[in-house]
């Protein structure tokens, strides 16, 4: 929960968090080491110096640290756990649905648990998806279309196999498909980041929502164009958001374009925890305004209303969260006990 100076409460849903184990003990090979090193480079490069973690903490943090960073020192009310399996690189996987599920079990009111699938897993994968969706009552999945696997250089959502999976997902009650269209997940081909396949499936699957994580960076220009034409395509701003510190000018331009092309109802906040932490991201986001010269180009303004939508209301709508009821649940569980209640005037 973020409270403004005037006491207004903003409900925050973090659209992108991970509970990973990238420690040397879990690394299977050099790729596992390089993968967590790359994440650490993102962390080191884009965090303010005061927010930088030791490498060891970054490689593997415990459940309590995560809970505190998100909900106690951080402003998140709820967080979506997005899995990243990477079983080729890590003995027990990097950040599996099972590992995340333990987190969700300890704090059921705080987490939304997402699953994953890969259409290249064929019929066996479909059965697994079925079991996973039923076991965890999944509302969402996270997909990596650029992931290299064996001989394959990645896949497109518009492939025939992908359609089978999306049809199955829809039947299983999954509403939200988060697609990683962003930098550095084992892309063999640069074109695996292409966002054109989103256009195709968004038209074919009108009842599903497609949340393009990292707003299509490094293809923001193409993404904006596609997203305008589809009512069910959203932008997740994880990875773009931390630029608010190191490159506020670029961040302003990106937000300005997203607001112009997609509008404030289709942008979702995400910290990408543990790469970055909600506290500083949201402090800066709440204080941020798009400079006048940028607004002049697009007319985009980051109003308080827009910020409220981006930080939580949009995700609440996608995941069917009743914000007031959820607040009551969290409050009843002592979740806001760390807040000093405002003294009545």
């Amino acid at each position, binding site marked *: 929960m973020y409270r403004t100076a005037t006491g207004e409460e903003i409900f925050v849903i973090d659209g992108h968090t991970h509970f990973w184990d990238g420690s040397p003990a879990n690394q299977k090979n050099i*790729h596992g080491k*390089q*993968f967590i*090193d*790359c994440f650490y*480079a*993102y962390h*080191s*490069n*884009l965090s303010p110096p005061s927010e930088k973690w030791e490498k060891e903490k970054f490689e593997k943090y415990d459940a309590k640290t995560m809970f505190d960073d998100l909900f106690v020192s951080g402003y998140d009310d709820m967080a979506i756990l997005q899995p990243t399996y990477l079983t080729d690189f890590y003995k027990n996987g990097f950040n599996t649905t099972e590992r995340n599920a333990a987190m969700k079990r300890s704090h059921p009111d705080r987490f939304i648990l997402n699953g994953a699938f890969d259409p290249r897993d064929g019929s066996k994968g479909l059965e697994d998806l079925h079991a996973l969706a039923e076991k965890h009552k999944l509302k969402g999945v996270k997909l990596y279309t650029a992931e*290299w696997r064996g*001989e*394959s*250089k990645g896949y497109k959502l518009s492939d025939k196999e992908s359609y089978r999976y999306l049809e199955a997902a829809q039947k299983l009650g999954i509403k939200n498909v988060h697609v990683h269209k962003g*930098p*550095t*997940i*084992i*892309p*063999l*081909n*640069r*074109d*695996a980041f292409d966002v054109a396949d989103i256009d195709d499936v968004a038209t074919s699957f009108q009842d599903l929502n497609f949340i393009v994580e990292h707003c299509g*960076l*490094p*293809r*923001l*220009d193409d993404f*904006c*164009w596609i997203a305008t034409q589809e009512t069910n395509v959203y932008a997740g701003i994880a990875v*773009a958001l931390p*630029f608010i510190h*190191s*490159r506020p000018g*670029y961040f302003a*331009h*990106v937000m300005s*374009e997203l607001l112009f092309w997609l509008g404030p109802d289709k942008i979702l906040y995400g910290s990408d925890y543990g790469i970055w932490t909600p506290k500083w991201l949201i402090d800066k986001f709440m204080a941020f305004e798009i400079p006048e010269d940028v607004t002049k*180009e697009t007319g985009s303004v980051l109003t308080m209303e827009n910020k409220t939508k981006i930080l939580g209301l949009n995700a609440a709508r996608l995941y069917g969260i009743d914000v007031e009821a959820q607040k009551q649940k969290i409050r009843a569980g002592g979740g806001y006990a760390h807040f000093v209640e405002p003294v009545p005037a």
Partner: protein
Amino acid sequence: MSGRVARSLPERDRQVDERQIETRQAELWACLHVVTDPELDESVVDLNFVTRADVDAANHVDIEFRLPTYWCAANFSFLMADDMRRAVAALDWVKSVSVVLGEHMYADKINAGLAQGLSFQETFGVEADGELEDLRRTFLLKAFQRRQVALLNHLTELGHVPETITALTLAELRCLPLDDEGDRLRRRYFERRDVVAGARDERPAFVDAAGSPLRADGFAAYVSGLRRVGINAEFNSALCRGLLSVRFDLETPFVPRPRAPA
């Protein structure tokens, strides 16, 4: 010790050799400077990717480079290496070129392919989809658009109106009096102008990605449509530079990089 050997060489010859190597090294760097990261449309030298460019007494050239992450797309990595190899091999004194990529997921595969002079497709076989040339063209187009919009914005700031700008031929644009920044942007634009359409003198200076001349009406909408291309490239460039600086802290010793003779 080599002191005796060195003294035994005629001093003059040694100096000539050293000067020649220095000149050649400068030529190498000048060549590499023209090679760009296709996605960022910036020089691989300015991006700090190239760590070594040496020439030996037999005129064999050794180039080493590295990228911001271990995962940078293999096709683009290959493309840059191949472009560097071609650029350097075009120097008439170069006998052979070796290009080596360091610390990359596909370093071994790419380096082996480069050493054998294979194409990306041949190097990666079924894993590659054979669309590298299409992809290269996509990004050349983006570079064209980005350079064009930068120049158009600059011309507008200098007070030129759409009617004048869209009426310019290439010859007229070439002669247009500009400030230093304008001149730089114009040179960059000319480097990519032929990606789209014929670049003979009498042709229109400004055409869209399909090769059609820009028109005064709709000029503003056209320019704002291109804005996203520039923002995207700048954002990626900032990310890549940042990641490279963290990965290698840029304290990693670099070979001295002599300037090309003016």
